[in-house]
């Protein structure tokens, strides 16, 4: 591949080994119990993969987008959930790394880089992920103690109940005084008033903990108000593209994973003296069609990641397209692979159908596809 070199082959080999030896044995547990993969995130941190998007000041060497993509693709082959758990850490830490706050670097980002714990971004409310002006969560300031007092609730918080820290988006009491309408407040999981609500039973992504969070009179020092800004659709469009690209390359890996498993089955399952792959032209053509879609996605995904490595600001639209096309191609490939596996494809224990369940959630998780399409439409010239 045009983007590969000797170093990236080593990264690929390392991530593949990690996926096969650490992730694969944990998949059944995740599927059956939805257990959060803390141990695997620790191994991923020790291997330095989380450092690929974190800066040197906190123990990383990033951002190195193509290098990270190569690792996410390999992790995604075994489990989209695990690759996406890495993406979720990028989403949370990308705001914090901009701050250059030594305390946050030491207490939050360095441990995350090592894989010691994960964080969560707590933003979505019933009004909708990006209808921020209708959100209810807000904070006030106690005039006597100068503490932040946070009140409100969130839904669909990724890593709810699994995170050590929550970065909570809340309305400021006075946008003029604070310099913006929204503030991001860092809250440790053990802070009184923080409650983990219902953890959702989703169609897929078992092992990714998505749930409600409640903040009732949560008091934190003023220094935990890390960032204040005005936010609108432009903030989302320009700030969220990178995560779209990372999720997209994870979907590429997952699509390849289910494709490779299915192809191996078709090549080993015999009808008489020949494999079913060799016996039926229709089957070979189906594989060829899926392979073409996967390679289209690869070209798009790594083109965007290379653009990000080169500091190309014009790749935002394509970055979002990686998420949209990635979700659609992943879902199509996973769906077709169920058919190509025959009856075995619909049996849970065979590990094929979970790819389709995971793929379906990719249409929703971290911005629904229609919403992304709407944003892209709004930016058409």
């Amino acid at each position, binding site marked *: 591949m045009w983007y590969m070199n*000797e*170093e990236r082959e*080593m*990264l690929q*080999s*390392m991530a593949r080994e990690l996926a096969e030896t*650490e992730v694969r044995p944990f998949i059944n547990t995740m599927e059956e119990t939805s257990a959060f993969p803390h141990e695997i995130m620790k*191994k991923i941190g020790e*291997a330095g993969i989380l450092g690929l998007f974190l800066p040197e000041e906190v123990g990383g060497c990033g951002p190195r987008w193509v290098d990270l993509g190569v*690792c996410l693709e390999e992790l995604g082959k075994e489990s989209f959930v695990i690759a996406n758990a890495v993406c979720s850490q990028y989403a949370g830490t990308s705001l914090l790394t901009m701050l250059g706050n030594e305390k946050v670097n030491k207490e939050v980002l360095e441990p995350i880089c090592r894989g010691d714990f994960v964080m969560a971004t707590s933003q979505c409310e019933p009004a909708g992920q990006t209808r921020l002006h209708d959100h209810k969560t807000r904070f006030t300031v106690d005039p006597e103690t100068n503490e932040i007092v946070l009140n409100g609730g969130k839904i669909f918080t990724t890593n709810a109940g699994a995170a050590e820290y929550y970065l909570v988006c809340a309305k400021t009491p006075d946008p003029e005084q604070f310099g913006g309408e929204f503030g991001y407040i860092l809250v440790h999981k053990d802070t009184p008033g923080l409650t983990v609500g219902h953890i959702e039973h989703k169609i897929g992504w078992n092992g990714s903990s998505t749930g409600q969070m409640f903040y009732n009179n949560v008091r934190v020092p003023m220094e935990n108000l890390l960032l204040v800004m005005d936010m609108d659709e432009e903030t989302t469009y320009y700030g969220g593209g990178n995560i779209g690209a990372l999720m997209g390359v994870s979907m590429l890996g997952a699509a390849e994973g289910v494709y490779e498993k299915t192809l191996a089955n078709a090549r080993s399952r015999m009808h008489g003296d020949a494999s079913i792959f060799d016996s039926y032209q229709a089957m070979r053509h189906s594989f060829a069609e899926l392979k073409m879609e996967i390679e289209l996605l690869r070209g798009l995904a790594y083109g965007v990641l290379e653009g990000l490595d080169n500091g190309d600001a014009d790749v935002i639209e394509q970055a979002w397209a990686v998420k949209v096309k990635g979700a659609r191609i992943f879902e199509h490939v996973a769906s077709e692979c169920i058919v190509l596996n025959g009856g075995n494809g619909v049996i849970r224990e065979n590990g094929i159908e979970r790819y389709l369940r995971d793929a379906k959630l990719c249409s929703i998780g971290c911005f629904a596809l229609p919403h992304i399409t709407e944003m892209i439409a709004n930016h058409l010239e």
Partner: protein
Amino acid sequence: MALNIAVCMKVAPDPDKYNQISLDPVTKTLVRSGIDSVISGTDLHAIELALQLKTKFGGKVTLISMGPDSNEKQLREALGYGCDEAVLLSDRKLGGADALATSYTLSKGIEKMGGYDLVLLGNASDDGSTAHVPSQLGEWLGLPHLTDVIGFEMTEEGCCLAKKEVEGAINTYKISLPAVIGVTKRLNTVRHPNVMAIFAAKKKPFTKLTAADLPDLDESRIGLAGSPTQAVGYLDADFHRDCVEITGRDDTEKAAELLRVVLAAKK
């Protein structure tokens, strides 16, 4: 007590691709074209031990491999585990070496590099699997050596305690350094390479030595000419087995039938 450690590392065909390897009927050698090469699995356990010792006692880990120039790729990969430098013994004259010629050449490479406190290597390679090299290397170097090692620790007085399984028992040997140790896969769990070490691998010292660089090299002991082991033929293994169905109304009847079949076969 910093340790200067060498790990002898072999590059072998990927075990996952063994079903794609064939034998050349004329030369009696393996046809490896198109087969990926990897670090021989047991050598990874020697690397792991070396890195653990370096973490505990300080020092340096040097990789030494004999093979074609393409072995640089796997040596760089091994540097990605955290080893410090690599030495490749590469020369057409060294090609076709059996275990004896390989161990002789490795010993000369080790001499050239100035010797080490500890020489570690996999007990047997994934492909040839003769398990001859560790002992032969110890003899060439004139150092104590132990094979089949399943446990290893350093003592306060600078010796090592190495464990090996012998006929169901585990013997512990106290060995003075320098020494040559052949390790097994039971010794430890190999770590995953690290991103930072992978990026650093490209910049780590890499030395290529040819036959001319090796001190007092006896050319009659190297390469194909110096290899007393010659493949003169090969046979296809017959894995055919007969299948006998054991039937009976209950387990007792089935056990009796099984016994009858076994005794009949014995006759």
